[in-house]
């Protein structure tokens, strides 16, 4: 025992340990810095931005930029800030997340406990679908949305997000349900329960963790989406990412970096909040998508 204790406190180990902490903290600063800069910049006025540096502190807390970003900044054609688009995003995200989660849960349940001829093959096909570059489907989808009469509408965007989100939600639930013993379903079938009763009474009550993971994953993905938003949304149904990009790239009058930064933080806030509150589940979603069960 004493040997081990001595070895742990040798000088070399101490130095290494200090170096380790210094490196880790320095890296933490590197990761944090952009956000700190965004925050500081959003609180300065234009004059301060011109004279100061990225990390110089604002002389006084000035929320002018936040107000303007929220309700006055110009995004392309109109100058109503990003507030309407922020709401658009919610209108897209909430139904899309709910539908894709429910469909994914049912799919995962079927694929893991009610296998039928070809269900595994189909799962593989769906899995491959997770990975296609969406550029391949953009043009036909635009045509289809037109035919369905939902081009440039919120429902159209919800539809697109559900269709391409279901691959991931199915993967999540399938991997989770794969670990639920098949005997549980067999026992329930012998007890006389049917397909939906088993799902509702036995499977769903033990699915809380994966439901949380899936909802968080889908929320983050759809909130942060830009490609579908820019390709399929109309002028007044744009999600906040598209509006933010328009705002930043609008060369209308002088560049107001403080407004850009405030708008960017606002756009990032919902997902950041989710991450801070439920980071554990967010990480689980990330790694679940990567390391298949």
């Amino acid at each position: 025992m004493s040997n081990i204790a001595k070895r742990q406190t040798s000088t070399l180990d101490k130095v290494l340990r200090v170096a380790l902490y210094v490196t880790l903290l320095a890296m933490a600063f590197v990761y944090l810095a952009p956000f700190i800069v965004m925050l500081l910049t959003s609180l300065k006025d234009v004059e301060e931005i011109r004279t100061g540096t990225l990390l110089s502190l604002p002389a006084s807390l000035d929320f002018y930029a936040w107000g303007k970003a929220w309700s006055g900044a110009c995004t392309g054609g109109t100058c109503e800030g990003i507030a309407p688009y922020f709401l658009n995003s919610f209108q897209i995200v909430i139904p899309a997340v709910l539908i894709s989660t429910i469909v994914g849960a049912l799919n995962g349940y079927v694929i893991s406990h009610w296998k039928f001829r070809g269900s595994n093959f189909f799962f593989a096909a769906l899995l491959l679908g997770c990975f296609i570059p969406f550029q391949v489907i953009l043009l036909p989808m635009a045509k289809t949305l037109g035919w369905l009469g939902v081009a440039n509408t919120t429902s159209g965007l919800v539809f697109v997000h559900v269709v391409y989100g279901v691959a991931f939600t199915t993967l999540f639930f399938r991997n989770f349900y794969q670990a639920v013993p098949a005997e549980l379903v067999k026992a329930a079938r012998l007890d006389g329960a049917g397909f939906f009763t088993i799902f509702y009474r036995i499977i769903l009550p033990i699915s809380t963790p994966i439901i949380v993971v899936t909802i968080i994953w889908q929320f983050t993905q759809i909130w942060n989406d830009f490609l579908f938003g820019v390709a399929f949304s109309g002028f007044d149904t744009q999600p906040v990412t598209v509006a933010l990009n328009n705002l930043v790239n609008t060369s209308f009058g002088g560049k107001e970096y403080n407004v850009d930064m405030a708008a960017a933080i606002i756009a990032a806030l919902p997902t950041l909040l989710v991450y801070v509150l439920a980071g554990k589940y967010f990480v689980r979603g990330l790694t679940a998508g990567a390391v298949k069960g």
Partner: protein
Amino acid sequence: MANLVIENVKKRYGQNEILKGINISIETGEFLILVGPSGCGKSTLMNSIAGLEEVSDGRIMIDGQDVTFASPKDRDIAMVFQSYALYPNMTVAENISFGLEMRKVPKEEREKEVSRVADMLQIGHLLKRKPAQLSGGQRQRVAMGRALARRPKMYLFDEPLSNLDAKLRVEMRTEIKKLHQKLGTTIVYVTHDQIEAMTLADRIAVMKDGEVQQLGTPQEIYDDPANLFVAGFMGSPAMNFIPAQVVEQNGVCALSLKTQSNVVLPFPKPDALSGHLGQTVLLGLRPEMITEPQPHKEGLEFVVKADIEVEVTEPMGADTMIVTRIENAEVNCRSNPAYSAQPGDTIAMMFDTSKAVVFDCETEERLDK
């Protein structure tokens, strides 16, 4: 309560034939055990009886009714699973009454049934707990309670004791046997543990590679195995298989084998050997038939004394196993612990061939049936 008839049941997965035509028929109230090594198809057969897997061919009748394609819930069968498969989100009471609820039994009746079952299995104090709060043995009891509550026609047990520790396993084994005696319901029970099979069954079906090797009472299977596989699978330590030459002695066929010296063992059915004179066959002799010299057996017809060289001794308490080597086959002998023997010793042992069996070396089939 019901009888069960399985006729020519086959199960294929693509090219793979898991069940190759199973025929089993048991009477109402019988305790049937399906036993065999893993992958022999016993669990598939069990699932087919339950209706959880569809058979490819053949038919299954319960109580005279063809249920081959009936859905599990219509077969009135209850099953106890190896993993217990308790619903994790429900309390013990809810677990037990779930099947009744699904069958639309009114609430008061369900409650009555739960308390009846709980009394029978002594789990009354656990009714409000969740499965995660139970020990392995308690879960096992709850799983049985869930099966009992529905009073089904037939019970299926799928290796119900294999997740318990050794002591509990023996206890629950006795419990299951008592339960069967009390209820008298037909039971089909899958296990790979041959002791469980011997102790519990009215009849045993020994399976291998998707075929029933032998169907019979435990004693039949033990004393009169159909082939080398059955003989080797049932019994612990396993039956000894000793290469022996068929010779003629005093005008009848007998078996000659080489221990420390040449010994010739008489055989109860010498005529079965006559076609194999001069050939080598496998003599099957259970360990308890090779013992230390016992005065009361001296001079019996099928008892012969011979010297063996002790390789290892394994004291087991009640007996001591003496391991020797005959014709390059390891041979276990069951002796009295008082009969002291050291590795390397040459000692006299008594070979009793009154229950011996012989097998063909090539086909592994019984020669003296």
